[in-house]
């Protein structure tokens, strides 16, 4: 069967939506909220349908990849760069996640943002993001990948700083942009090295031997080639930045300043997984660089447990989820570092469902409480927010890895493959260490997500009169003054347009594991050709009773975490007082990473700027030019006296000069 490749449509529809919505202000139509909703969601819905058609036709097609070159963008000597789109198993799965989850979040945003004066701006940015993300995953060469990479960074910047009247949002947007540029730079350097080595930037000479195929290109690198190591590590710098891995994770928690649906779409489900995508995409390079894979697994493991431990004590509902996202991305990198790319992508898809769901539920809570994000001022909301409560439970169980929710299967695919690598013949202790880290993280995950649920939805309401005014959050401006008699009276469930996407994602979080179940790993088999020679997802699977033991251990880890959370927070009055021990303070202050960066990087740079401003700018540059002006002025005053205004004086001077010249010639020997 022929491949029915609609990738171009998937790319151009969101761009069209962005262009239409972005130009509405010119015509004064930016108040037409209904039309904006239809255009914003409609283009994404059509893009999703196109992606679905492409995906289905690809699964039924004989060829496993389809590359279309649309035009020759640069042709200069040996350098040729084409604009082409590649539809292959990996990009089609990514397209489905991006447009599918993107569509649900667009619909959700219609309810969440309904009163915001920047409604048109919001939807045009959101469509722009989908366009950039589609470009990132469907480009057929590294240069267009870089363009998409930078454009999603721009979209992220615009949406984090969406409420630009809040200084904190502007600062967060700036921080995200600056940190992300480090990654862009790494990617750019990697691209230069790739060009130097291959003389081309297309995936087909670098990764695959044939543009329309999935056969891995033969290796051109020697064993432990330093160039290859540099390329793979520089690519990973880019991945670690975009996917918020240590030590470049600092931008993601601050990115929660953006509207909650943006956090769900960009900073949980799609953009931050671009790094996971890039490693999986470049699998053929990474397979040849085992050192790079160790680094990836190590950073992933460290990040997973580091971020999960921070999430234990945070009090901002969105920040808890942000650290959880960082931690889950760490899991994906552990999987990829262990060589099990398909498990990483599997976890990417399920994480997109349940983390987007959790953010949406958090958004519903924030929406209901008029912008309150501090969980210490919530509590007892389960009576008023039934739907949000139950969908939150679904998302929480999926995140904690409780059977049968999606997160359990994908997390176990990762942990199981680590265990398998560790106990298999010739296995290394390294994988068992990572397995241990993964299990410890699973315990922490169960704890922090159920702490969040118990504190927010159980117990009694602690907000009361202290409910603060939302800071600039427009959709809360219409909230009426609270009556003291029943503090929860004004709290209302989200409208159906927000609940429907939440329910859809709850269903996906429950059933979205079927394509990756360990017994018939359809996703793994589908993706396998992308990941290079000899990649076989089945080789990572545990067999027989070890599989059940791995299930049991993973489940137990999640349950232990939930159990501890229940013991601590399911009481009538959970202790929310800050503790005074050093561990608690370390975690609450996020290991002081921000402070360290502030001292090591920000302060010296700002100080140097001040110094050059004072010494170099005022002293040397300004001083130099001011001194020159002073000198010229003083000299002019002196010289002015020569201009007597008497013609005869001038003639006399002329004559004297002429005589002097004459004398010089006469007197010259």
């Amino acid at each position, binding site marked *: 069967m022929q491949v029915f490749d609609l990738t171009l449509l998937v790319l151009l529809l969101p761009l069209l939506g962005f262009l239409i919505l972005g130009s509405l202000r010119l015509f004064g139509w930016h108040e037409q909220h209904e039309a904006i909703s239809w255009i914003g969601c409609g283009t994404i819905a059509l893009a999703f349908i196109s992606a679905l058609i492409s995906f289905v036709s690809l699964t039924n097609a004989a060829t496993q990849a389809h590359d279309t070159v649309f035009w020759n963008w640069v042709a200069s000597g040996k350098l040729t760069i084409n604009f082409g789109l590649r539809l292959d198993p990996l990009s089609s799965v990514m397209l489905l996640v991006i447009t599918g989850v993107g569509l649900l979040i667009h619909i959700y945003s219609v309810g969440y943002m309904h009163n915001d004066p920047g409604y048109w701006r919001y939807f045009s940015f959101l469509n722009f993001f989908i366009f950039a993300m589609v470009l990132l995953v469907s480009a057929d060469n590294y240069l267009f990948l870089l363009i998409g990479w930078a454009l999603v960074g721009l979209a992220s910047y615009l949406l984090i700083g969406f409420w630009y009247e809040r200084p904190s949002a502007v600062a967060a947007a700036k921080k995200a942009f600056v940190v992300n540029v480090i990654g862009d730079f790494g990617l750019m350097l990697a691209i230069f090295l790739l060009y130097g080595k291959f003389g081309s930037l297309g995936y087909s000479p670098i990764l695959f031997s044939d543009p329309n195929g999935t056969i891995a290109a033969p290796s051109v690198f020697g064993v432990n080639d330093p160039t290859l190591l540099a390329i793979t590590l520089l690519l990973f710098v880019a991945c670690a930045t975009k996917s918020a891995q240590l030590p470049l994770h600092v931008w993601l928690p601050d990115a929660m300043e953006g509207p909650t649906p943006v956090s769900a779409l960009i900073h949980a489900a799609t953009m931050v997984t671009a790094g996971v995508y890039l490693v999986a995409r470049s699998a053929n390079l990474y397979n040849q660089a085992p050192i790079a894979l160790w680094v990836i697994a190590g950073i992933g493991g460290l990040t997973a447990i580091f971020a999960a431990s921070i999430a234990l004590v945070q009090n901002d509902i969105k920040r808890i989820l942000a650290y959880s996202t960082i931690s889950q991305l760490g899991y994906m990198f552990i999987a990829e570092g262990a060589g099990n790319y398909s498990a990483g992508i599997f976890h990417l898809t399920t994480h997109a469902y349940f983390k987007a769901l959790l953010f949406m539920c958090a958004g519903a809570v924030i929406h209901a409480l008029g912008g309150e994000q501090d969980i210490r001022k919530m509590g007892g909301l389960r009576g008023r927010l039934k739907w949000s409560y139950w969908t939150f439970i679904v998302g929480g169980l999926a995140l904690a890895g409780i059977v049968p929710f999606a997160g359990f299967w994908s997390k176990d695919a990762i942990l199981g493959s680590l265990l398998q690598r560790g106990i298999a013949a010739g296995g290394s202790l390294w994988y068992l260490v990572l397995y241990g880290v993964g299990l410890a993280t699973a315990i922490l995950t169960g704890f922090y997500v159920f702490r969040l649920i118990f504190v927010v939805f159980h117990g009694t309401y602690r907000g009361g009169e202290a409910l603060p005014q939302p800071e600039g959050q427009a959709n809360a401006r219409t909230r009426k003054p609270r009556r003291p008699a029943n503090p929860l009276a004004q709290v209302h469930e989200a409208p159906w347009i927000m609940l429907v996407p939440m329910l859809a994602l709850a269903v996906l979080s429950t059933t979205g594991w079927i394509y990756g179940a360990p017994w018939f790993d359809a996703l793994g088999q589908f993706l396998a050709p992308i990941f290079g020679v000899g990649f076989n997802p089945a080789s990572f699977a545990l067999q027989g009773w070890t599989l059940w033991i791995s299930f049991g251990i993973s489940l137990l880890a999640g349950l232990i975490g939930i159990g501890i959370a229940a013991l601590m927070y399911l009481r009538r009055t959970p202790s929310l007082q800050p503790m005074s021990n050093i561990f608690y303070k370390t975690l609450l202050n996020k290991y002081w990473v921000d402070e360290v960066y502030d001292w090591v990087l920000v302060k010296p740079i700002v100080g140097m700027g001040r110094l050059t401003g004072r010494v170099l700018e005022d002293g040397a540059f300004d001083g130099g030019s001011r001194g020159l002006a002073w000198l010229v002025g003083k000299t002019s005053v002196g010289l002015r006296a020569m201009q007597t205004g008497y013609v005869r004086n001038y003639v006399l001077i002329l*004559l004297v000069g002429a005589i002097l010249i004459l004398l010089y010639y006469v007197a010259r020997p």
Partner: protein
Amino acid sequence: MPPDQPTGYLIVSAVLFTIGVVGVLVRRNPLIMFMSIELMLNAVNLSFMTFAHYLDSVEGWIFVFLVLTVAAAEVVVGLAIIVSIFRTRHNVDVDELDSMKG
């Protein structure tokens, strides 16, 4: 026939030039100053002609033509300026024309 030596011509030329210089320096009437300038120019012309003749060279002739042309143009412009100054100030004493003084 001209004499064998150019001394006489050059002496006349130097005398004429000196008269011109002194005229420019001491007179305050711009018309007289112009005349003195013309005197200097023609003194130079005389020396040019002298050398052209005695050195049997044609460059001197060419320079004389150039000087004549420039002198004519200069006089035209200069007289126009003097006339226009006279119209605005009713006075052409050069010592009083000192508004460009520094």
